[in-house]
Protein backbone atom coordinates (compact mmCIF):
# COMPACT_ATOMS: atom_id res chain seq x y z
CA UNK A 1 0.00 0.00 0.00
CA UNK A 2 1.45 3.37 -0.94
CA UNK A 3 0.31 5.00 2.30
CA UNK A 4 2.07 2.47 4.52
CA UNK A 5 4.63 3.97 6.87
CA UNK A 6 8.16 3.59 5.62
CA UNK A 7 10.49 1.33 7.60
CA UNK A 8 12.25 4.12 9.56
CA UNK A 9 8.89 5.63 10.48
CA UNK A 10 7.58 2.21 11.48
CA UNK A 11 10.49 1.96 13.90
CA UNK A 12 9.61 5.37 15.31
CA UNK A 13 6.03 4.27 15.89
CA UNK A 14 7.26 1.10 17.57
CA UNK A 15 9.55 3.15 19.80
CA UNK A 16 6.65 5.42 20.75
CA UNK A 17 4.53 2.45 21.77
CA UNK A 18 7.43 1.13 23.82
CA UNK A 19 7.84 4.52 25.49
CA UNK A 20 4.18 4.54 26.52
CA UNK A 21 4.46 0.97 27.82
CA UNK A 22 7.61 1.67 29.81
CA UNK A 23 6.36 4.98 31.19
CA UNK A 24 3.12 3.43 32.40
CA UNK A 25 4.98 0.51 33.98
CA UNK A 26 7.25 2.88 35.88
CA UNK A 27 4.29 5.02 36.92
CA UNK A 28 2.58 1.85 38.10
CA UNK A 29 5.50 1.22 40.42
CA UNK A 30 5.12 4.73 41.86
CA UNK A 31 1.38 4.16 42.29
CA UNK A 32 2.10 0.93 44.14
CA UNK A 33 4.14 2.82 46.72
CA UNK A 34 1.53 5.55 47.03
CA UNK A 35 3.30 8.23 45.00
CA UNK A 36 0.78 8.33 42.20
CA UNK A 37 -2.97 8.81 42.20
CA UNK A 38 -5.38 6.28 40.69
CA UNK A 39 -3.92 6.34 37.20
CA UNK A 40 -5.56 4.77 34.16
CA UNK A 41 -3.19 2.93 31.83
CA UNK A 42 -3.27 2.03 28.14
CA UNK A 43 -1.35 -1.24 28.19
CA UNK A 44 -2.39 -3.17 25.09
CA UNK A 45 -4.08 -0.17 23.45
CA UNK A 46 -0.95 1.81 22.52
CA UNK A 47 -1.19 1.15 18.78
CA UNK A 48 -4.32 3.26 18.43
CA UNK A 49 -3.04 6.55 19.85
CA UNK A 50 0.32 6.13 18.14
CA UNK A 51 -1.04 5.06 14.75
CA UNK A 52 -3.75 7.71 14.64
CA UNK A 53 -1.60 10.68 15.61
CA UNK A 54 1.28 9.63 13.31
CA UNK A 55 -1.07 9.55 10.33
CA UNK A 56 -2.29 13.11 10.98
CA UNK A 57 -0.58 16.49 10.86
CA UNK A 58 1.24 17.87 13.90
CA UNK A 59 -1.17 20.81 13.68
CA UNK A 60 -4.25 18.58 13.98
CA UNK A 61 -5.88 18.63 17.40
CA UNK A 62 -6.35 15.83 19.93
CA UNK A 63 -9.09 15.50 22.55
CA UNK A 64 -8.98 12.50 24.85
CA UNK A 65 -10.88 10.66 27.55
CA UNK A 66 -9.51 9.87 31.01
CA UNK A 67 -6.82 7.39 29.91
CA UNK A 68 -4.57 10.13 28.60
CA UNK A 69 -0.92 9.11 28.80
CA UNK A 70 -0.76 7.30 25.45
CA UNK A 71 -2.39 10.19 23.60
CA UNK A 72 -0.13 12.76 25.21
CA UNK A 73 3.00 10.80 24.28
CA UNK A 74 1.71 10.27 20.76
CA UNK A 75 1.14 14.02 20.49
CA UNK A 76 4.73 14.56 21.63
CA UNK A 77 3.88 16.30 24.88
CA UNK A 78 7.26 16.69 26.68
CA UNK A 79 7.91 13.82 29.05
CA UNK A 80 9.01 15.62 32.19
CA UNK A 81 6.10 18.04 32.71
CA UNK A 82 3.76 15.24 31.63
CA UNK A 83 5.11 12.92 34.32
CA UNK A 84 4.99 15.73 36.88
CA UNK A 85 1.35 16.42 36.01
CA UNK A 86 0.12 12.82 36.20
CA UNK A 87 1.88 12.55 39.57
CA UNK A 88 0.12 15.75 40.65
CA UNK A 89 3.33 17.69 41.19
CA UNK A 90 3.55 21.50 41.00
CA UNK A 91 6.03 21.30 38.10
CA UNK A 92 3.38 19.59 35.98
CA UNK A 93 1.98 20.92 32.73
CA UNK A 94 -1.08 22.23 34.53
CA UNK A 95 0.58 22.90 37.86
CA UNK A 96 -0.62 19.58 39.24
CA UNK A 97 -4.23 20.78 39.17
CA UNK A 98 -5.37 18.65 36.24
CA UNK A 99 -3.71 15.32 36.92
CA UNK A 100 -3.91 12.47 34.46
CA UNK A 101 -7.63 12.80 33.81
CA UNK A 102 -7.82 16.48 32.83
CA UNK A 103 -4.49 16.73 31.08
CA UNK A 104 -3.94 19.21 28.26
CA UNK A 105 -1.08 20.86 26.40
CA UNK A 106 -2.50 23.28 23.82
CA UNK A 107 0.93 24.31 22.43
CA UNK A 108 1.23 20.66 21.28
CA UNK A 109 -2.41 20.66 20.20
CA UNK A 110 -3.33 18.21 22.89
CA UNK A 111 -6.34 20.33 23.75
CA UNK A 112 -8.49 18.66 26.33
CA UNK A 113 -9.15 15.47 28.20
CA UNK A 114 -11.86 14.66 30.64
CA UNK A 115 -12.68 12.18 33.32
CA UNK A 116 -16.44 12.03 32.88
CA UNK A 117 -17.15 9.40 30.26
CA UNK A 118 -18.52 10.84 27.02
CA UNK A 119 -17.80 14.53 27.76
CA UNK A 120 -14.87 14.58 25.35
CA UNK A 121 -17.11 13.93 22.34
CA UNK A 122 -19.30 17.09 22.28
CA UNK A 123 -16.29 19.15 23.43
CA UNK A 124 -14.30 17.82 20.47
CA UNK A 125 -17.24 18.56 18.16
CA UNK A 126 -17.23 22.17 19.36
CA UNK A 127 -13.48 22.41 18.93
CA UNK A 128 -13.80 21.06 15.38
CA UNK A 129 -16.57 23.58 14.75
CA UNK A 130 -14.20 26.37 15.79
CA UNK A 131 -11.35 25.01 13.65
CA UNK A 132 -13.59 25.09 10.60
CA UNK A 133 -15.70 28.19 11.23
CA UNK A 134 -13.63 30.42 13.50
CA UNK A 135 -10.01 29.62 12.79
CA UNK A 136 -10.87 28.62 9.23
CA UNK A 137 -7.98 26.21 8.66
CA UNK A 138 -8.11 22.70 7.19
CA UNK A 139 -6.78 21.08 10.35
CA UNK A 140 -8.94 18.37 11.84
CA UNK A 141 -9.77 17.24 15.38
CA UNK A 142 -9.46 13.67 16.61
CA UNK A 143 -11.29 12.50 19.72
CA UNK A 144 -10.56 9.24 21.51
CA UNK A 145 -13.19 7.46 23.59
CA UNK A 146 -13.96 3.95 24.72
CA UNK A 147 -16.78 1.58 23.80
CA UNK A 148 -18.40 2.14 27.20
CA UNK A 149 -18.80 5.86 26.39
CA UNK A 150 -21.23 4.98 23.62
CA UNK A 151 -23.92 4.29 26.23
CA UNK A 152 -23.69 7.82 27.57
CA UNK A 153 -25.94 10.65 26.46
CA UNK A 154 -22.99 12.94 25.86
CA UNK A 155 -21.62 10.57 23.24
CA UNK A 156 -24.96 10.57 21.41
CA UNK A 157 -25.45 14.34 21.72
CA UNK A 158 -21.87 14.83 20.56
CA UNK A 159 -22.30 12.65 17.47
CA UNK A 160 -25.54 14.41 16.63
CA UNK A 161 -23.90 17.83 16.99
CA UNK A 162 -20.89 16.77 14.90
CA UNK A 163 -23.16 15.45 12.17
CA UNK A 164 -25.58 18.37 11.93
CA UNK A 165 -22.80 20.95 12.20
CA UNK A 166 -20.67 19.04 9.65
CA UNK A 167 -17.44 19.38 11.58
CA UNK A 168 -14.02 17.95 10.63
CA UNK A 169 -13.90 15.39 13.45
CA UNK A 170 -12.33 11.95 13.53
CA UNK A 171 -14.00 9.85 16.23
CA UNK A 172 -11.80 7.02 17.42
CA UNK A 173 -13.49 4.35 19.50
CA UNK A 174 -10.93 2.32 21.42
CA UNK A 175 -13.14 -0.73 21.78
CA UNK A 176 -11.58 -2.84 24.52
CA UNK A 177 -14.86 -4.55 25.39
CA UNK A 178 -14.85 -3.32 28.95
CA UNK A 179 -16.38 -0.55 31.03
CA UNK A 180 -14.09 -0.71 34.02
CA UNK A 181 -14.78 -4.31 34.94
CA UNK A 182 -18.21 -4.46 33.30
CA UNK A 183 -18.68 -6.42 30.11
CA UNK A 184 -20.65 -5.29 27.03
CA UNK A 185 -23.69 -7.48 27.73
CA UNK A 186 -24.57 -4.91 30.39
CA UNK A 187 -24.27 -1.87 28.14
CA UNK A 188 -24.20 -2.72 24.46
CA UNK A 189 -27.23 -4.35 22.85
CA UNK A 190 -25.63 -4.48 19.38
CA UNK A 191 -22.53 -6.46 18.38
CA UNK A 192 -20.51 -3.48 17.20
CA UNK A 193 -20.36 0.14 18.27
CA UNK A 194 -20.41 1.28 14.67
CA UNK A 195 -24.01 0.09 14.41
CA UNK A 196 -24.90 2.85 16.82
CA UNK A 197 -23.09 5.38 14.63
CA UNK A 198 -25.12 4.72 11.50
CA UNK A 199 -28.12 6.41 13.12
CA UNK A 200 -26.31 9.72 12.86
CA UNK A 201 -25.43 9.51 9.17
CA UNK A 202 -21.72 9.52 10.02
CA UNK A 203 -19.51 7.31 7.86
CA UNK A 204 -17.77 4.60 9.82
CA UNK A 205 -15.63 1.50 9.65
CA UNK A 206 -14.12 -1.06 12.03
CA UNK A 207 -10.48 -2.09 12.07
CA UNK A 208 -7.95 -4.02 14.13
CA UNK A 209 -6.75 -1.49 16.69
CA UNK A 210 -3.81 -3.63 17.75
CA UNK A 211 -1.99 -3.21 14.45
CA UNK A 212 -0.23 0.14 14.56
CA UNK A 213 0.40 -0.12 10.86
CA UNK A 214 -3.24 -0.91 10.13
CA UNK A 215 -4.41 2.04 12.23
CA UNK A 216 -1.88 4.32 10.54
CA UNK A 217 -2.99 3.26 7.05
CA UNK A 218 -6.70 3.63 7.84
CA UNK A 219 -6.28 7.07 9.39
CA UNK A 220 -4.17 8.32 6.50
CA UNK A 221 -7.11 7.67 4.20
CA UNK A 222 -9.85 8.71 6.58
CA UNK A 223 -7.98 11.85 7.67
CA UNK A 224 -7.62 13.00 4.07
CA UNK A 225 -11.32 12.39 3.48
CA UNK A 226 -12.34 14.39 6.57
CA UNK A 227 -10.05 17.25 5.51
CA UNK A 228 -11.54 17.26 2.04
CA UNK A 229 -15.20 16.83 2.95
CA UNK A 230 -15.18 18.73 6.26
CA UNK A 231 -17.40 16.08 7.86
CA UNK A 232 -16.99 13.63 10.75
CA UNK A 233 -15.87 10.02 10.39
CA UNK A 234 -16.02 7.20 12.93
CA UNK A 235 -13.37 4.53 13.28
CA UNK A 236 -13.99 1.60 15.62
CA UNK A 237 -10.63 0.15 16.66
CA UNK A 238 -10.89 -3.30 18.23
CA UNK A 239 -8.33 -3.61 20.99
CA UNK A 240 -7.42 -5.30 24.26
CA UNK A 241 -6.71 -3.63 27.57
CA UNK A 242 -4.00 -5.68 29.23
CA UNK A 243 -3.87 -3.53 32.38
CA UNK A 244 -6.56 -3.32 35.00
CA UNK A 245 -9.02 -0.43 34.72
CA UNK A 246 -7.11 1.68 37.21
CA UNK A 247 -4.78 1.60 40.12
CA UNK A 248 -6.38 0.24 43.26
CA UNK A 249 -8.97 -1.86 41.49
CA UNK A 250 -9.07 -5.58 40.82
CA UNK A 251 -9.39 -7.20 37.39
CA UNK A 252 -12.39 -9.38 36.66
CA UNK A 253 -10.40 -11.40 34.10
CA UNK A 254 -8.56 -14.58 34.95
CA UNK A 255 -4.82 -14.98 34.51
CA UNK A 256 -5.47 -17.44 31.69
CA UNK A 257 -7.74 -14.97 29.94
CA UNK A 258 -5.17 -12.19 30.27
CA UNK A 259 -2.44 -14.50 28.99
CA UNK A 260 -4.53 -15.23 25.92
CA UNK A 261 -5.23 -11.54 25.38
CA UNK A 262 -1.51 -10.83 25.71
CA UNK A 263 -0.96 -12.78 22.49
CA UNK A 264 -2.64 -9.82 20.78
CA UNK A 265 -0.23 -7.34 22.40
CA UNK A 266 0.36 -4.67 19.75
CA UNK A 267 4.04 -4.33 20.69
CA UNK A 268 4.72 -8.02 20.18
CA UNK A 269 2.78 -8.01 16.94
CA UNK A 270 4.66 -5.03 15.56
CA UNK A 271 8.09 -6.34 16.61
CA UNK A 272 7.26 -9.59 14.85
CA UNK A 273 5.96 -7.82 11.75
CA UNK A 274 9.09 -5.68 11.54
CA UNK A 275 11.23 -8.77 12.08
CA UNK A 276 13.09 -6.89 14.79
CA UNK A 277 16.00 -8.89 16.17
CA UNK A 278 15.75 -9.31 19.91
CA UNK A 279 18.74 -7.07 20.59
CA UNK A 280 17.28 -4.22 18.57
CA UNK A 281 13.99 -4.47 20.41
CA UNK A 282 15.90 -4.54 23.68
CA UNK A 283 17.72 -1.39 22.63
CA UNK A 284 14.39 0.37 22.06
CA UNK A 285 13.23 -0.67 25.53
CA UNK A 286 16.53 0.41 27.10
CA UNK A 287 16.34 3.82 25.48
CA UNK A 288 12.75 4.28 26.67
CA UNK A 289 13.69 3.20 30.19
CA UNK A 290 16.49 5.73 30.28
CA UNK A 291 14.22 8.53 29.06
CA UNK A 292 11.52 7.65 31.55
CA UNK A 293 13.95 7.32 34.43
CA UNK A 294 15.37 10.77 33.69
CA UNK A 295 11.93 12.33 33.33
CA UNK A 296 10.63 10.83 36.57
CA UNK A 297 13.74 11.89 38.47
CA UNK A 298 13.51 15.43 37.09
CA UNK A 299 9.79 15.66 37.79
CA UNK A 300 10.17 14.49 41.37
CA UNK A 301 13.31 16.56 41.89
CA UNK A 302 11.29 19.73 41.44
CA UNK A 303 9.16 18.87 44.40
CA UNK A 304 12.18 18.28 46.61
CA UNK A 305 13.52 21.70 45.65
CA UNK A 306 10.18 23.40 46.25
CA UNK A 307 9.93 21.73 49.66
CA UNK A 308 13.52 22.67 50.56
CA UNK A 309 13.14 26.31 49.56
CA UNK A 310 9.77 26.58 51.34
Amino acid at each position, binding site marked *: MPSTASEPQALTLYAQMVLIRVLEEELQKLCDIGEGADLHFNKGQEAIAVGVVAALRPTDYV*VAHHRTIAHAIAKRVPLEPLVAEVLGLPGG*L*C*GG*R*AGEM*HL*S*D*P*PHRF*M*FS*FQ*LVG*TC*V*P*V*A*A*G*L*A*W*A*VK*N*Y*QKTDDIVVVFHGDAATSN*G*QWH*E*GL*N*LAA*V*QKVPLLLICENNGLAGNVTPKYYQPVPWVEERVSGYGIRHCRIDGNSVQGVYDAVQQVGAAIRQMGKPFFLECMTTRLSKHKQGQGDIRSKEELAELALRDPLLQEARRLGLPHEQSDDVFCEAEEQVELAIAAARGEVVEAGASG
Partner: protein
Amino acid sequence: MRAPLKADPFSRNHLIRDAIGAALYDAMKADPAIHLFGEGAEIKMHFDAPQIEKELPDRAHTLPISEDGNVNFAVGASLLGVKPVVDIITADFLYRAMDSICNTAAKLNFVQVEGEPPRTIVIRAEFLMGGPTTGQRPEALFCHIPGLNVVVPSTPRDAYGLMRTALATPGVTIFFEDRMIPDSEFAGEDLEYSGPVPLGVGRLRQLGGKGTVTVLSYGLARPLMEKALRDWRMDVDLSIKLSADLIDLRSLYPIDWGMIKFYLARNGNLLIIEPDVRYGGIGAEIAATICEELPHVKIKRLGVLRATIPANPALHGTMLPTEQEIIDAINSF
Protein backbone atom coordinates in the same frame (compact mmCIF):
# COMPACT_ATOMS: atom_id res chain seq x y z
CA MET B 1 -54.38 40.23 48.72
CA ARG B 2 -51.97 37.66 47.35
CA ALA B 3 -50.25 37.53 43.95
CA PRO B 4 -49.05 41.14 44.07
CA LEU B 5 -47.54 41.11 40.61
CA LYS B 6 -49.07 40.07 37.37
CA ALA B 7 -47.76 36.55 36.94
CA ASP B 8 -48.91 35.62 33.51
CA PRO B 9 -46.37 33.66 31.46
CA PHE B 10 -48.13 34.83 28.32
CA SER B 11 -47.34 38.48 28.95
CA ARG B 12 -43.60 38.21 29.51
CA ASN B 13 -41.50 41.35 29.68
CA HIS B 14 -39.61 42.52 26.65
CA LEU B 15 -37.57 45.45 27.90
CA ILE B 16 -35.00 43.27 29.69
CA ARG B 17 -34.84 41.01 26.66
CA ASP B 18 -34.35 44.01 24.37
CA ALA B 19 -31.51 45.20 26.60
CA ILE B 20 -29.82 41.79 26.41
CA GLY B 21 -30.21 41.86 22.62
CA ALA B 22 -28.64 45.33 22.51
CA ALA B 23 -25.78 44.20 24.75
CA LEU B 24 -25.11 41.17 22.56
CA TYR B 25 -25.24 43.27 19.41
CA ASP B 26 -22.87 45.92 20.76
CA ALA B 27 -20.47 43.32 22.17
CA MET B 28 -20.51 41.23 18.98
CA LYS B 29 -19.80 44.29 16.84
CA ALA B 30 -16.79 45.05 19.00
CA ASP B 31 -15.51 41.48 19.46
CA PRO B 32 -15.57 38.96 16.59
CA ALA B 33 -14.94 36.10 19.03
CA ILE B 34 -18.49 36.26 20.42
CA HIS B 35 -20.85 33.66 18.91
CA LEU B 36 -24.36 32.67 19.97
CA PHE B 37 -25.32 29.01 20.33
CA GLY B 38 -28.48 27.28 21.40
CA GLU B 39 -31.76 25.73 20.55
CA GLY B 40 -33.41 28.10 18.06
CA ALA B 41 -30.55 30.60 18.37
CA GLU B 42 -31.14 32.00 14.89
CA ILE B 43 -34.92 32.30 15.15
CA LYS B 44 -34.51 33.93 18.56
CA MET B 45 -32.39 36.67 17.02
CA HIS B 46 -35.01 37.00 14.27
CA PHE B 47 -37.66 37.87 16.85
CA ASP B 48 -35.64 39.47 19.63
CA ALA B 49 -32.54 41.03 18.09
CA PRO B 50 -33.18 41.53 14.36
CA GLN B 51 -30.06 43.70 14.09
CA ILE B 52 -27.92 40.66 14.85
CA GLU B 53 -29.81 38.55 12.33
CA LYS B 54 -29.38 41.28 9.71
CA GLU B 55 -25.81 42.38 10.27
CA LEU B 56 -24.14 39.36 11.89
CA PRO B 57 -26.00 36.38 10.44
CA ASP B 58 -23.05 34.01 10.66
CA ARG B 59 -22.63 34.57 14.40
CA ALA B 60 -25.78 32.81 15.68
CA HIS B 61 -25.87 29.01 15.48
CA THR B 62 -28.96 26.90 16.03
CA LEU B 63 -28.16 23.69 17.91
CA PRO B 64 -30.40 20.71 18.72
CA ILE B 65 -32.37 20.35 21.98
CA SER B 66 -29.37 18.82 23.71
CA GLU B 67 -28.64 21.32 26.47
CA ASP B 68 -25.84 19.33 28.06
CA GLY B 69 -24.14 18.58 24.75
CA ASN B 70 -24.57 22.19 23.65
CA VAL B 71 -22.66 23.55 26.66
CA ASN B 72 -19.89 21.01 26.12
CA PHE B 73 -19.85 21.98 22.42
CA ALA B 74 -19.41 25.63 23.47
CA VAL B 75 -16.58 24.63 25.81
CA GLY B 76 -14.87 23.00 22.83
CA ALA B 77 -15.26 26.15 20.73
CA SER B 78 -13.90 28.26 23.59
CA LEU B 79 -10.63 26.29 23.46
CA LEU B 80 -9.74 28.20 20.30
CA GLY B 81 -10.76 31.59 21.67
CA VAL B 82 -14.44 31.70 20.74
CA LYS B 83 -16.51 33.44 23.43
CA PRO B 84 -19.74 31.47 23.31
CA VAL B 85 -23.10 32.63 24.64
CA VAL B 86 -25.11 29.44 25.14
CA ASP B 87 -28.87 29.88 25.40
CA ILE B 88 -30.49 27.17 27.53
CA ILE B 89 -33.88 28.95 27.09
CA THR B 90 -35.85 28.19 30.30
CA ALA B 91 -33.99 28.19 33.64
CA ASP B 92 -35.40 24.76 34.57
CA PHE B 93 -33.62 23.28 31.57
CA LEU B 94 -30.33 24.16 33.22
CA TYR B 95 -30.78 20.96 35.25
CA ARG B 96 -30.20 19.09 32.00
CA ALA B 97 -26.88 20.86 31.59
CA MET B 98 -25.69 20.64 35.19
CA ASP B 99 -22.94 18.19 34.24
CA SER B 100 -21.50 20.23 31.40
CA ILE B 101 -21.81 23.48 33.37
CA CYS B 102 -20.57 22.30 36.78
CA ASN B 103 -18.16 19.56 35.71
CA THR B 104 -16.82 20.81 32.38
CA ALA B 105 -17.21 24.58 32.03
CA ALA B 106 -16.65 25.44 35.70
CA LYS B 107 -13.43 23.41 35.81
CA LEU B 108 -12.06 24.48 32.44
CA ASN B 109 -9.99 27.45 33.53
CA PHE B 110 -8.76 25.68 36.66
CA VAL B 111 -7.21 22.64 34.97
CA GLN B 112 -5.64 24.38 32.03
CA VAL B 113 -1.96 24.79 31.29
CA GLU B 114 -0.18 27.69 32.99
CA GLY B 115 -0.10 30.70 30.72
CA GLU B 116 -3.07 29.74 28.57
CA PRO B 117 -5.61 32.57 28.35
CA PRO B 118 -8.69 31.84 30.47
CA ARG B 119 -11.77 31.05 28.38
CA THR B 120 -14.90 33.20 28.47
CA ILE B 121 -18.31 31.52 28.35
CA VAL B 122 -21.78 32.95 29.09
CA ILE B 123 -24.70 30.61 29.74
CA ARG B 124 -28.08 32.32 29.70
CA ALA B 125 -31.54 31.18 30.72
CA GLU B 126 -34.84 32.81 31.62
CA PHE B 127 -37.12 32.56 34.66
CA LEU B 128 -40.76 31.87 33.91
CA MET B 129 -43.85 31.05 35.96
CA GLY B 130 -45.05 28.11 33.92
CA GLY B 131 -45.34 25.22 36.34
CA PRO B 132 -43.40 22.45 38.07
CA THR B 133 -40.62 22.31 35.46
CA THR B 134 -40.94 25.75 33.85
CA GLY B 135 -41.07 27.95 36.92
CA GLN B 136 -38.03 27.05 39.00
CA ARG B 137 -35.21 29.37 40.00
CA PRO B 138 -32.00 27.37 40.30
CA GLU B 139 -29.63 30.31 40.82
CA ALA B 140 -28.59 29.28 44.34
CA LEU B 141 -27.35 25.90 43.10
CA PHE B 142 -24.88 27.56 40.75
CA CYS B 143 -23.63 29.92 43.47
CA HIS B 144 -22.41 26.78 45.24
CA ILE B 145 -20.06 25.77 42.41
CA PRO B 146 -16.55 27.28 42.29
CA GLY B 147 -15.68 28.57 38.85
CA LEU B 148 -19.05 30.14 38.10
CA ASN B 149 -20.28 33.73 38.31
CA VAL B 150 -24.05 34.14 38.77
CA VAL B 151 -26.02 37.27 37.88
CA VAL B 152 -29.74 38.09 38.03
CA PRO B 153 -30.33 41.64 36.74
CA SER B 154 -33.73 43.13 37.55
CA THR B 155 -33.69 46.11 35.17
CA PRO B 156 -32.92 46.60 31.47
CA ARG B 157 -29.97 48.81 32.42
CA ASP B 158 -28.42 46.13 34.60
CA ALA B 159 -29.22 43.38 32.08
CA TYR B 160 -27.33 45.33 29.42
CA GLY B 161 -24.45 46.20 31.70
CA LEU B 162 -24.00 42.76 33.21
CA MET B 163 -24.12 41.02 29.82
CA ARG B 164 -21.42 43.39 28.52
CA THR B 165 -19.30 42.65 31.59
CA ALA B 166 -19.85 38.88 31.43
CA LEU B 167 -18.64 38.87 27.83
CA ALA B 168 -15.57 40.89 28.73
CA THR B 169 -14.67 38.85 31.82
CA PRO B 170 -12.60 35.66 31.56
CA GLY B 171 -14.52 32.84 33.20
CA VAL B 172 -17.97 31.32 33.11
CA THR B 173 -21.02 33.42 33.92
CA ILE B 174 -24.55 32.09 34.43
CA PHE B 175 -26.77 34.94 33.26
CA PHE B 176 -30.41 34.80 34.37
CA GLU B 177 -33.05 36.80 32.57
CA ASP B 178 -36.07 37.44 34.80
CA ARG B 179 -39.04 37.52 32.44
CA MET B 180 -41.57 37.71 35.24
CA ILE B 181 -40.90 41.36 36.09
CA PRO B 182 -43.55 43.41 34.31
CA ASP B 183 -42.22 46.06 31.94
CA SER B 184 -44.23 48.62 33.93
CA GLU B 185 -41.74 48.12 36.80
CA PHE B 186 -38.96 49.88 34.87
CA ALA B 187 -38.71 53.65 34.79
CA GLY B 188 -36.21 56.44 34.39
CA GLU B 189 -32.60 55.43 34.35
CA ASP B 190 -33.51 51.72 34.65
CA LEU B 191 -34.29 52.01 30.95
CA GLU B 192 -31.05 53.68 29.90
CA TYR B 193 -28.18 51.48 28.80
CA SER B 194 -25.15 53.33 29.97
CA GLY B 195 -22.38 50.74 29.71
CA PRO B 196 -21.00 47.85 31.67
CA VAL B 197 -22.13 47.02 35.20
CA PRO B 198 -19.37 45.35 37.21
CA LEU B 199 -19.77 41.85 38.63
CA GLY B 200 -20.15 41.70 42.39
CA VAL B 201 -21.53 45.22 42.81
CA GLY B 202 -25.01 45.76 44.22
CA ARG B 203 -27.17 48.78 43.51
CA LEU B 204 -28.76 51.00 46.09
CA ARG B 205 -32.33 51.53 44.91
CA GLN B 206 -33.49 53.76 47.71
CA LEU B 207 -31.86 55.32 50.74
CA GLY B 208 -33.87 55.12 53.95
CA GLY B 209 -33.55 57.14 57.11
CA LYS B 210 -30.68 56.41 59.43
CA GLY B 211 -31.35 53.65 61.90
CA THR B 212 -33.99 51.82 59.89
CA VAL B 213 -33.70 48.61 57.86
CA THR B 214 -31.45 47.35 55.06
CA VAL B 215 -33.53 45.35 52.61
CA LEU B 216 -31.74 43.07 50.15
CA SER B 217 -33.42 41.53 47.14
CA TYR B 218 -32.76 40.47 43.58
CA GLY B 219 -34.66 39.60 40.42
CA LEU B 220 -38.42 39.52 40.77
CA ALA B 221 -38.15 40.30 44.51
CA ARG B 222 -36.66 43.73 43.70
CA PRO B 223 -39.93 45.18 42.33
CA LEU B 224 -41.87 43.30 45.05
CA MET B 225 -39.82 45.16 47.64
CA GLU B 226 -40.19 48.53 45.94
CA LYS B 227 -43.89 48.15 45.24
CA ALA B 228 -44.59 47.22 48.85
CA LEU B 229 -42.99 50.42 50.08
CA ARG B 230 -44.60 52.52 47.36
CA ASP B 231 -48.08 51.21 48.10
CA TRP B 232 -47.54 51.58 51.82
CA ARG B 233 -46.76 55.25 51.44
CA MET B 234 -49.87 55.83 49.38
CA ASP B 235 -52.15 53.83 51.65
CA VAL B 236 -51.28 54.73 55.17
CA ASP B 237 -50.89 57.53 57.56
CA LEU B 238 -47.62 59.25 56.67
CA SER B 239 -46.96 59.87 60.33
CA ILE B 240 -46.08 56.16 60.68
CA LYS B 241 -42.40 55.95 60.00
CA LEU B 242 -41.46 53.28 57.50
CA SER B 243 -38.16 53.71 55.88
CA ALA B 244 -35.53 51.36 54.50
CA ASP B 245 -32.36 51.18 52.45
CA LEU B 246 -33.30 49.09 49.43
CA ILE B 247 -30.52 47.16 47.69
CA ASP B 248 -30.72 45.13 44.50
CA LEU B 249 -27.90 42.58 44.68
CA ARG B 250 -27.85 42.06 40.86
CA SER B 251 -24.84 39.77 41.16
CA LEU B 252 -25.22 36.71 43.42
CA TYR B 253 -21.68 35.46 42.93
CA PRO B 254 -19.51 37.34 43.52
CA ILE B 255 -21.74 39.17 45.99
CA ASP B 256 -21.27 42.72 47.23
CA TRP B 257 -20.39 42.09 50.88
CA GLY B 258 -18.88 45.57 51.13
CA MET B 259 -22.14 47.27 50.26
CA ILE B 260 -24.22 44.99 52.49
CA LYS B 261 -21.97 45.63 55.49
CA PHE B 262 -21.77 49.37 54.81
CA TYR B 263 -25.52 49.78 55.06
CA LEU B 264 -25.83 47.38 57.98
CA ALA B 265 -23.39 49.58 59.85
CA ARG B 266 -25.99 52.36 59.58
CA ASN B 267 -28.89 50.46 61.07
CA GLY B 268 -28.13 46.94 62.25
CA ASN B 269 -31.35 45.52 60.78
CA LEU B 270 -31.37 43.19 57.77
CA LEU B 271 -34.33 41.95 55.77
CA ILE B 272 -33.66 39.62 52.84
CA ILE B 273 -36.42 39.10 50.28
CA GLU B 274 -35.91 36.28 47.82
CA PRO B 275 -38.00 35.34 44.79
CA ASP B 276 -36.93 31.74 45.35
CA VAL B 277 -37.00 28.83 47.79
CA ARG B 278 -35.71 30.12 51.11
CA TYR B 279 -34.30 26.79 52.29
CA GLY B 280 -30.65 26.61 51.27
CA GLY B 281 -30.98 29.81 49.25
CA ILE B 282 -28.96 32.97 48.76
CA GLY B 283 -30.62 34.57 51.77
CA ALA B 284 -29.48 31.70 53.97
CA GLU B 285 -25.88 32.28 52.96
CA ILE B 286 -26.12 36.03 53.53
CA ALA B 287 -27.87 35.56 56.88
CA ALA B 288 -25.31 33.01 58.07
CA THR B 289 -22.34 35.16 57.04
CA ILE B 290 -23.74 38.32 58.62
CA CYS B 291 -24.64 36.37 61.75
CA GLU B 292 -21.03 35.18 62.05
CA GLU B 293 -19.35 38.46 61.20
CA LEU B 294 -21.79 41.04 62.60
CA PRO B 295 -23.57 39.19 65.41
CA HIS B 296 -25.42 42.30 66.61
CA VAL B 297 -27.42 42.56 63.36
CA LYS B 298 -31.06 41.46 63.51
CA ILE B 299 -31.96 39.35 60.50
CA LYS B 300 -35.24 38.32 58.86
CA ARG B 301 -35.84 36.43 55.64
CA LEU B 302 -38.81 36.30 53.29
CA GLY B 303 -38.92 33.88 50.41
CA VAL B 304 -40.72 30.99 48.85
CA LEU B 305 -41.62 27.74 50.62
CA ARG B 306 -39.83 24.62 49.49
CA ALA B 307 -42.85 23.44 47.52
CA THR B 308 -43.38 22.29 43.97
CA ILE B 309 -44.58 25.02 41.66
CA PRO B 310 -48.14 24.64 40.33
CA ALA B 311 -48.91 25.06 36.63
CA ASN B 312 -51.39 27.87 37.32
CA PRO B 313 -49.28 31.05 37.40
CA ALA B 314 -51.68 32.78 39.78
CA LEU B 315 -51.08 29.95 42.25
CA HIS B 316 -47.34 30.35 41.75
CA GLY B 317 -47.85 34.05 42.52
CA THR B 318 -49.33 33.16 45.88
CA MET B 319 -46.05 31.51 46.86
CA LEU B 320 -44.15 34.81 46.68
CA PRO B 321 -43.85 37.17 49.67
CA THR B 322 -46.80 39.58 49.83
CA GLU B 323 -46.70 43.33 50.31
CA GLN B 324 -48.20 42.90 53.75
CA GLU B 325 -45.54 40.39 54.76
CA ILE B 326 -42.83 42.76 53.59
CA ILE B 327 -44.31 45.73 55.47
CA ASP B 328 -44.83 43.64 58.60
CA ALA B 329 -41.25 42.39 58.43
CA ILE B 330 -39.87 45.93 58.15
CA ASN B 331 -42.06 47.14 61.00
CA SER B 332 -41.06 44.27 63.22
CA PHE B 333 -37.49 45.45 63.71
